[in-house]
């Protein structure tokens, strides 16, 4: 009897391990930012393509649409990979995509936009990365969803087309 029960112990161990791994997998996926649900940080930076005016937090707070803020750089390879997804994103109704160009040169950044296309409504030029730090950016690319001046969601790393469909679009639907 004891012997037979003993033969079930490997099964038990593997199930316990499975539970452990499952939770560790989930704890990796949640990209919880302390800023979620908070008001966006105040900032005001120059525009990349247009010297007249500043791009600032007021532009986002006053907006009625769903705002996406994508932090990118021309030297960042994942950003390049993400670019066609951003093009798709910018075409969704009631969505405005803004960019923050992170630690870049104007020349390279403009070049990047000219070759790959510009899905952004406005691009802030954040050459020293100060504004990104206030947003709590760890690395590029990162994307924030902002609605009425509040941060709703944060995505770390390039947005994959499947993530756009599975995660981002449901959030947009919810907000609408």
């Amino acid at each position, binding site marked *: 009897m004891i012997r037979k029960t003993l033969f079930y112990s490997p099964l038990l161990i593997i199930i316990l391990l499975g539970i452990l791994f499952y939770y560790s997998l989930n704890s990796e996926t949640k990209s919880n930012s302390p800023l979620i649900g908070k008001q966006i940080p105040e900032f005001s930076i120059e525009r990349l393509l247009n010297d007249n005016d500043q791009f600032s937090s007021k532009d986002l707070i006053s907006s009625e649409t769903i705002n996406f803020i994508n932090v990118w750089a021309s030297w960042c390879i994942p950003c390049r990979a993400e670019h066609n997804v951003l093009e798709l994103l910018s075409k969704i109704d009631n969505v405005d995509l803004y960019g923050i160009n992170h630690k870049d040169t104007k020349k390279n950044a403009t070049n990047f936009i000219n070759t790959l296309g510009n899905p952004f409504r406005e691009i802030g030029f954040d050459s020293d990365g100060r504004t990104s730090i206030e947003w*709590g950016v760890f690395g590029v690319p990162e994307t924030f969803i902002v609605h009425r001046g509040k941060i709703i969601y944060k995505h770390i790393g390039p947005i994959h087309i499947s993530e756009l469909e599975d995660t981002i679009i449901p959030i947009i639907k919810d907000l609408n």
Partner: protein
Amino acid sequence: MREPVKQRIIKLLIGASIIFVAVLIIIFNLRDNLIYFYSPTDLVEINLNNNQEIRVGGLVADNSLKYEENSSIYRFVITDEKNIINVEYRGILPNLFAENKGVVVEGIYSGANNIIANKVLAKHDENYMPPEVIDALQKEGKWQGE
């Protein structure tokens, strides 16, 4: 074929006690050799014993890297944008090491916010940070949020 019950029980007990002792030794050994990871803010908040081996992660602060030529020691500051810790390191900095970039150092905590590093890891590429650093900065973010 079967051995007497008594003999089986004795064998089982001996086996079990050997396993028990072995596991105990291994676990104590594990506890002694754990290296905890802290952010600079953690180090301010908790009281850490000197001479403990720890890991610290964060960003290398701007303009903090100094090199002492006669002792060939590097000094730099790791920050999580709230608190800092001073690092002393004798050795070769990794190629990806740079100011304003993520870094993890492993070494001996020598009190007064100093760590004498024996390893400096900058194992991320240009775009991503080591997961520990993200963790450290996130923790810091929480702290700020309150």
